[in-house]
C-alpha cells in the first residue's frame, strides 16, 4: 500500500532551507575576520551534519526534488537577494559572477564525462578558446557582443572537433592523455604566439548589449548605484538558466538515456544499436560549446586575459569541481563551485597554503566520500509525480 501523503518536506520547509542557505552564504561573504570565517565554516559543516543526522536534509532534498520548478525559482531568488545585498561591493560580486560562469563551464564538462564518460582534462583550454575569441572579436571587429559569446562557444566546439578522432578511438587512460596533451599544447601555444599577445595576454572589451555598456556602474535614482558586475551576474544567470534547462532536458530525454548507457557500458550500448561515435561527438561538442560560452563572458568581465589563466592546473580545478559535486549531478556543481571558488578567496590567512589545503581536501573527499557531495540521484522523468 502506498502512502498517500507526499513524502519529503513541505513547501515551507524548502523555503526556510533556501532562506537559511542564502543567509549563510551572505554571512560567509560579509565576514572579514578569519576567526569569524572559520567559526562560520565549522558551524556550517556542523549544521549540515546535524541536518543529515536528523533526516532534515533528506526530507528537504526530497521535497525540493519533487518541486523542481520551486527549486529553480528559489535558487534564482537566492542569487538575486545576495546580489541586491552586495549591490556595490565589486569584489564580492566578481566572486559571485565567477561562480556562475564556472558553473556554466562545468555544466559542459558534466555533459562530457558526467553523462557520457568522455574524459576531458582540457576544460580550461576550451574555456580559453572562448576567452580569446571574445578578446579578438570584441577588440577588432564590430560583431555584436551577444554573438561573440555564441561564436566563442562555436569556436570551442570547432577546436574540440580536432580532438574528436583521437578521443573517439582511445579509451580510459589513453583518452586522458589526448586531452592532457592538448591542454599543455594550448597553453604553450598561447605563450609563444605573438599574434595572440604571447605571455602578456590580451585586453578584452567589456560587454555591450544593444548599446548597454556593461562596464559602467548602474545609476538608479539619486543615491543608489549598482556595481557594474551586477550586469554580468544578471547575464550570466540568464545564460546559466538557459544552459541549465537545456542540460536538464538533455539528461531527461532519450538522448540522456543513450549517453548514460554509453558511459556505463559502451559494448552493451553498441549491441543495442546505439551509435557510440555519434553520441560521444554530440556530448563532447555540446560540452565544449557551453565551456566556450562561459569563457567568452568571463573574458569580457575580467577585461584582460593571459595564458596563465588556462593552465593544466585550471583544467584540473574544473574536473575536481565535477568530481566534488558528484559526477553527473548538476546541482552538485553549484555547491562544489561555490566551495572551490569562494573558500580560497575568503580564507586570506591561509592564502599561502590554499593550494595545499585544497589538494588535501580533494584527497580526503575521494578517500571518504568518493561519490561526491551530492551524488547523482536516479533520473526523474516527471518531477512531482507520485506513484498511485
Amino acid at each position, binding site marked *: 500500500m502506498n502512502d498517500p501523503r507526499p513524502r519529503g518536506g513541505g513547501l515551507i520547509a524548502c523555503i526556510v532551507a533556501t532562506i537559511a542557505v542564502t543567509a549563510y552564504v551572505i554571512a560567509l561573504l560579509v565576514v572579514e575576520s578569519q576567526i569569524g570565517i572559520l567559526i562560520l565554516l565549522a558551524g556550517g559543516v556542523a549544521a549540515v551534519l546535524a541536518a543529515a543526522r536528523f533526516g532534515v536534509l533528506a526530507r528537504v532534498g526530497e521535497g525540493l526534488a519533487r518541486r523542481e520548478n520551486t527549486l529553480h525559482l528559489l535558487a534564482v531568488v537566492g542569487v538575486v537577494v545576495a546580489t541586491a545585498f552586495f549591490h556595490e561591493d565589486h569584489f564580492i560580486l566578481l566572486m559571485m559572477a565567477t561562480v556562475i560562469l564556472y558553473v556554466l563551464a562545468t555544466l559542459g564538462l558534466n555533459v562530457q564525462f558526467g553523462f557520457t564518460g568522455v574524459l576531458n582534462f582540457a576544460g580550461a583550454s576550451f574555456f580559453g578558446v572562448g576567452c580569446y575569441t571574445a578578446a579578438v572579436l570584441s577588440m577588432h571587429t564590430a560583431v555584436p557582443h551577444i554573438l561573440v559569446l555564441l561564436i566563442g562557444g562555436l569556436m570551442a566546439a570547432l577546436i574540440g572537433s580536432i580532438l574528436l578522432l583521437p578521443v573517439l578511438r582511445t579509451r580510459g587512460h589513453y583518452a586522458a592523455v589526448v586531452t592532457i596533451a592538448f591542454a599543455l*599544447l594550448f597553453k604553450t601555444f598561447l605563450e609563444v604566439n605573438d599574434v595572440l599577445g604571447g605571455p602578456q595576454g590580451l585586453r578584452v572589451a567589456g560587454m555591450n548589449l544593444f548599446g548597454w555598456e556593461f562596464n559602467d556602474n548602474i545609476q538608479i535614482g539619486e543615491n543608489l548605484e549598482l556595481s557594474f558586475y551586477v550586469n554580468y551576474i544578471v547575464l550570466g544567470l540568464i545564460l546559466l538558466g538557459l544552459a541549465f534547462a537545456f542540460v536538464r532536458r538533455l539528461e531527461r530525454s532519450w538522448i540522456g538515456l543513450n549517453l548514460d548507457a554509453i558511459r556505463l557500458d559502451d559494448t552493451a550500448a553498441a549491441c543495442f544499436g546505439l551509435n557510440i561515435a555519434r553520441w560521444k561527438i554530440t556530448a563532447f561538442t555540446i560540452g565544449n560549446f557551453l565551456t566556450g560560452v562561459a569563457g567568452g563572458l568571463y573574458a569580457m568581465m575580467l577585461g584582460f586575459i593571459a595564458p596563465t589563466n588556462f593552465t593544466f592546473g585550471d583544467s584540473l580545478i574544473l574536473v575536481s569541481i565535477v568530481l566534488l559535486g558528484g559526477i553527473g549531478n548538476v546541482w552538485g556543481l553549484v555547491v562544489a563551485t561555490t566551495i572551490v571558488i569562494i573558500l580560497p578567496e575568503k580564507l586570506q590567512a591561509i592564502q599561502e597554503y590554499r593550494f595545499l589545503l585544497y589538494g588535501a581536501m580533494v584527497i580526503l573527499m575521494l578517500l571518504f566520500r568518493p561519490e561526491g557531495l551530492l551524488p547523482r540521484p536516479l533520473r526523474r522523468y516527471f518531477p512531482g509525480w507520485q506513484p498511485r
Partner: protein
Amino acid sequence: MDVGYLAQYVMNGLMLGMMYALVAVGFTLFFGVLDVIKFSHGDVLTVGAFAGLATYLGLDLLGISSPVVLVLCVLSVSALCMALLGALIARYLVLPLRSAPPLNTLLITLMLGTVLRESVRLFYPQGANPKPFPALLPTDSVTMGNFNLRLDNVMMLFAGTIVIVGVHLLLTRTKLGLAIRAVAQDEETAKTMGINFKLIVLITFGLGSALAAFAGIMNGLYYNEINFGMGLLLGVIGFSSAIVGGLGNIYGAILGGFLFAALQTVGAVAMPFASAYKDVFAFGVIILIMAWRPTGLIREKVSERV
C-alpha cells in the same frame, strides 16, 4: 647542417630521452601491477631531487668532499626516501581506491602531486626560488668542432642505461620480477599461487618512485638547477611517453621517452617555425599518434575488448 651541431643535438636529445624514459618506466610499472595511473610521479621526482640536494648540503656541512661518496650518498638517500614515499602513497592512497572508478585514482594522485609540489614550495627553505644543484660529476669535456662532449653527460647516460637494464633484468630474471609480472598479468591467480599481492604492489611502487628520484637527480645535474615546479611537466611528458609507447610495456615506455625527446629536438631544430614551438609540436604529434594507434605504439594485450 654541420655534423658537430647535429651530434650536439643528438646528445642533448639522448639525455632528455633518458630522463623521460626513466619517468615513463615508472608509470608503466604502476600501470602494470594495478592498472592505475599515479600522476604524482612527476612531483615525487621533484621531491627526490630536493631530497638529494638536502643530502648534499648535509654532507657538505659534515665536511665530506669526496665526489664518489657524495654521489653515492645523494643517490641512495634520495632513492630510498622516494621508494618509501612511493610505497606509502600506494598503501594509503592508491590501494584504498581500488574499487573506485579509475578517474578517482587519477585525480587523487594529481591532487597529491599538488600537495607535494606546494609542500616543497612552502616548507623547503626558500623553496619558491630555483635552487642551484651542485655539479657532483667531473665537468671535463672534449670539444670536436662544434660538438662539446661533456663527461658528466656521458656518465649520466651510462648510469641511466645501467638502471634501465637493471630494472629490466630485475623484472625478467629474478623471483621478485616474476612475482611482479604475475601480479600484473592476473591478480587473482597470483594470489592463489601464494604471492603476497599487497607487498608486491608496495615494492613495485617503491621501485618506480626510486626511478623517479634517480631521474630527478639526473635532471638537477644536467641543468644545474632544480625548482619546485619541474616535476609537473616531466610527469606529464613521462605519462605521455608511457601511453604512446603502450602502457604496461617497459620497452614501450623507453621507446616513448626517447620518441618524445626526439620530437622536441626535431621541433626545436628542424622545423620551419620558431624553436619555442617545440612543445606544441611534440604534443601535437603525440595526439596524432594517439589517433593512429589508440593503445600505443606497442599494443597492450587486451583480451576483453569486443
